[in-house]
């Protein structure tokens, strides 16, 4: 029986079915046997114009925009595991653009605008839910920082408001605004257009989008070496053989240092565990996103009803996708400080990702001293929300061999000139 059914799924079938109510209906009548692969799994060709290392959201988006905006066709995305299996699958799905400094704010806002059109653009519902994000202030200095950030956002054309404690309480009735709390809530910044999206769908949607343009998506293909001659990239050694490449973009998040090492480049990156957990599925109880740096917790409720909660970073370096339990315990305590009634809610599942942190909590989107080799990394805890924007400007950087105006400031040079964009100065942990 099902052996036959299985035979229908032949890798390599062209992706053509439009997704719509109509196709759902038609396929339903045919026992859903006519669906095509969402994306095409390819075997490596001898060489490509562009090779993207890392098939996470950022890497797939890069390939998608290289093809869509820059007409590139001969593109491969290689992935050591399965696509979207890194931080794309492990984050807490928050999307916002209310960053302090112009450089970050404009980049994240560019990204948020792309988010807003992404479902239609990809013909794949990435379930963007613009339910708003609150960044809570617990001290007078927090409130100064919030005021500063919101004013900067507004002057940059980004929607943001300063709310006082009473207004926060009005909009989030369950939140504890008692003044006797250890870290009383004095107010918050609020970005209405911010929210959450379905993380896996973003990777799958970009994979499908890129596939439509003929991008080769090559999973289980690990980079083992870089072929660099005369200061120029020529190709990559991989677990699936040598692949020639005109230009190589490394979008390997926590593993960027590992790839950089192959090119003899040092990176200002340290990889740390970042943990998160979800509760059991509950009836709707929280219809927005709440973040607090002072108590180190942030949460939202998924469409499935789970409270999705992000914890703080473990301070030690790690590539293990595991952190220490006391970090989770502290975050649970923080959530109870904000929402005492959640004390009886149960954690269902916890996990860890590997975040690539930089000294100024800002990404690196940069050319390197090696011609044709580009890096997009260092997103720390803030990568998911940047996915489309990051891919979009990185595609530009790779196609034109010069940075997009929005990522010029994020070049490696800043660590030598001193022109850091210090987001933790005022934004604390920049989730």
């Amino acid at each position, binding site marked *: 029986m099902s052996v036959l059914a299985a035979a229908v799924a032949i890798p390599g079938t062209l992706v053509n079915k439009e997704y719509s109510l109509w196709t759902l209906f038609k396929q339903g009548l045919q026992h859903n046997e006519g669906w095509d692969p969402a994306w095409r799994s390819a075997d490596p060709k001898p060489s490509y114009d562009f090779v993207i290392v890392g098939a996470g959201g950022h890497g797939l988006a890069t390939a998608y925009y290289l093809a869509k905006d820059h007409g590139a066709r001969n593109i491969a995305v290689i992935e050591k595991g399965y696509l979207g299996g890194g931080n794309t699958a492990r984050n807490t799905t928050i999307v916002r653009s209310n960053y302090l400094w112009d450089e970050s704010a404009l980049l994240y806002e560019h990204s948020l605008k792309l988010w807003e059109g992404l479902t239609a653009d990809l013909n794949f519902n990435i379930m963007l839910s613009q339910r708003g994000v609150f960044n809570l202030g617990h001290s007078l200095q927090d409130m100064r920082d919030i005021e500063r950030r919101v004013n900067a956002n507004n002057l940059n054309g980004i929607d943001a408001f300063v709310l006082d404690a009473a207004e926060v309480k009005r909009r989030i009735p369950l939140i504890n605004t008692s003044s006797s709390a250890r870290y009383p809530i004095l107010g918050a910044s609020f970005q209405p257009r911010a929210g959450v999206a379905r993380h896996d769908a973003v990777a799958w949607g970009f994979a499908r989008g890129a596939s439509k343009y003929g991008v080769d998506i090559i999973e289980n293909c690990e980079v083992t070496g870089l072929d660099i001659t005369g200061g120029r990239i020529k190709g990559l050694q991989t677990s699936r053989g040598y692949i020639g490449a005109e230009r190589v973009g490394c979008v390997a998040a926590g593993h960027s*240092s*590992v790839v950089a090492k192959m090119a003899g480049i*040092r990176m200002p990156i*340290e990889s740390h565990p970042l943990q998160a957990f979800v509760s059991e599925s509950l009836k709707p109880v929280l219809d927005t996103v709440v973040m607090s740096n002072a108590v180190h917790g942030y949460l939202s409720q998924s469409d499935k009803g789970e409270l999705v909660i992000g914890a703080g970073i473990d*301070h*030690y*370096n790690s590539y*293990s996708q595991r952190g220490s339990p006391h970090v989770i315990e502290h975050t649970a305590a923080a959530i109870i400080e904000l929402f005492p009634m959640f004390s009886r809610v149960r954690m269902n599942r916890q996990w860890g990702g590997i975040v690539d942190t930089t000294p100024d909590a800002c990404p690196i989107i940069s050319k390197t001293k090696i011609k044709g080799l580009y890096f997009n990394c260092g997103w720390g805890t803030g990568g998911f929300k940047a996915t489309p924007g990051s891919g979009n400007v990185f595609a530009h950087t790779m196609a034109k061999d010069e940075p997009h105006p929005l990522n010029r400031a994020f070049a490696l040079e800043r*660590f*030598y000139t001193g022109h850091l964009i210090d987001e933790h100065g005022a934004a604390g942990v920049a989730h």
Partner: protein
Amino acid sequence: MFVLYCPHCGEKREEEEFGYGGEAFIARPATPETLEDEAWGDYLFMRKNSKGWHWEMWSHNTGCRKFFVVKRNTATHAIEASWTLADGRKAFDAEGNTA
């Protein structure tokens, strides 16, 4: 969640007693003024971030307040050993590592 051996207290203690001190043996340049911006930037910001065995420092915050050296595998979380700073440097050099 680690158990770390503090070479000064001579006991294995729970991770929560310690603070992470970062990559070990990043030597401050003797004469910073003579360095190019690039070399200074490397010292300031560039890190090994090794996947695998990693030489790092921890400080025993609730105990003796001393920094010490730990050789830990960042991929598996296995810990080979810990040393005082001085002994750690010897072990580090003995392996032929360079800071």
